[in-house]
């Protein structure tokens, strides 16, 4: 017993010393440690996610041929309509480019789209995130916007070799600028996730709404990305205003809550929009500090 107590004392002292060292350690070492444990878990998560996909595949295999034929026919119709729309879009794109050139308007950021399956979700009151089955190997970089169709899902925060962590729109660490539907001329508002209570749908807070804004009558106002911040393309739907617009503590600005436009608990697949060139913020957060700030002065 005495030996044990002595040993425990020594161990605890050693632990305290080690914690001290840990704090003083270069952040790269800590990052490496974290990365190692993440990579260790990644294959298991991937495997489980893939096996779930497989189960789903076999479930689909069991469908009757009639069902499949009907589904195929529906799909063909949808395809035909979409192809027409695609043609129209192409014309608009060309016209848009021409107009931008005429106005010497800065071209919007080019994105590469990476489609990724959702591996797991991880939610608590402090974070709302998902792991997706694409990572550094697929060209994903931290900070990339994650979308589902024209709806914003969230933003990549950390990238591992084959999986990435995505902070959802409703996560307290999520930040974005937006325009509100019915605000003319559109004025920037600030969107940030909020800590959400258990068993509730995650929400985000829309703040810095100017006092004279009134949502359009008879419909829920959409919250769309501005495209000005260099991260999200313009016009993506972040969500819709939930409930009324209320005055803030300062009394001279308003705020409101927003619910995501898509049930983020059920999405199976997302698209990651990878900007062709790294954004300034990405460079700033780059853990390797490869690019020194001085080079840009």
């Amino acid at each position, binding site marked *: 017993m005495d030996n044990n107590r002595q*040993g425990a004392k020594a161990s605890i002292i050693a632990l305290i010393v080690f914690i001290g060292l840990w704090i003083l350690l270069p952040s790269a070492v800590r990052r490496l440690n974290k990365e190692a444990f993440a990579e260790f878990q990644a294959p298991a998560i991937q495997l489980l996610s893939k096996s779930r996909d497989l189960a789903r595949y076999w479930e689909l295999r069991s469908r009757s041929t009639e069902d499949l034929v009907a589904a195929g026919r529906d799909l063909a119709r949808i395809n035909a309509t979409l192809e027409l729309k695609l043609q129209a879009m192409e014309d608009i794109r060309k016209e848009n480019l021409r107009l931008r050139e005429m106005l010497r308007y800065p071209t919007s950021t080019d994105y590469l789209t990476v489609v990724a399956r959702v591996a*797991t979700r991880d*939610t*608590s009151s402090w*974070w709302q995130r998902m792991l997706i089955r694409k990572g550094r190997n697929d060209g994903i970089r931290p900070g990339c916007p994650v979308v589902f169709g024209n709806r914003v899902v969230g933003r990549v925060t950390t990238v591992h070799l084959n999986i990435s*962590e995505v902070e959802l729109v409703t996560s307290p*660490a999520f930040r974005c600028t937006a325009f509100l539907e019915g605000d003319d001329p559109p004025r920037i508002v600030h969107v940030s996730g909020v*800590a959400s209570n*258990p068993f509730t749908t995650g929400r985000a807070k829309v703040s810095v709404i100017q006092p004279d804004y009134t949502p359009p009558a008879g419909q829920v106002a959409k919250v769309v990305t501005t495209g000005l911040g260099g991260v999200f393309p313009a016009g993506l739907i972040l969500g819709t205003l939930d409930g009324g617009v209320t005055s803030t503590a300062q009394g001279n600005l308003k705020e409101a809550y927003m619910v995501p436009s898509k049930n983020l608990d059920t999405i199976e697949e997302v698209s990651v929009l990878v900007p062709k060139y790294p954004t300034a913020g990405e460079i700033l957060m780059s853990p390797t500090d490869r690019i020194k700030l001085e080079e840009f002065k």
Partner: protein
Amino acid sequence: MTLTWAWLILFLATFPWLIAADLLGSSLSGWNLVFYISGLVIVTPCRRLRRWQAILFSAFIGFTFEALRPIPHGSLAFSLVFIAIILSSFPELLRDKSRLNNGAVLVNTASCLVWYVAIAFAMRNQTPFVLSSFLYNLSLQLLLAAGLTLLLLKPISVYQNQVMDKLRIP
């Protein structure tokens, strides 16, 4: 098989439980609660492993939980190590079943409290702090951690003891 790597093998053997808990959390993501068992899984091994092994085992469990989450890195691992030192130095603390039960609940909820507080502290500049909401969320999270412990202590203990028996750990 030397005993030197027993802790690592035990860790690998315990890992599926952690993944399973995460998967449960994933499929019940609407709950906004973490299915936290990392505190619970160190209880049984700490009674039998030697102190340094218990420390390494707990540290690995802690780091694994933190790796894919925005929790301040090390906060959980070091608190688990602290608990491991206590438990492995005084195995008589968990001598009988009721003590083991209480101890496990205490360990799991206390370590849960630590990471919960740690992330709250890390997020203080990013999201407004509402005390009532914080306490509500925290109490539900601790309740879940305690409930999971009562539910899973038996199977996990049996499983881990069997693994340790196989490893011929005294």
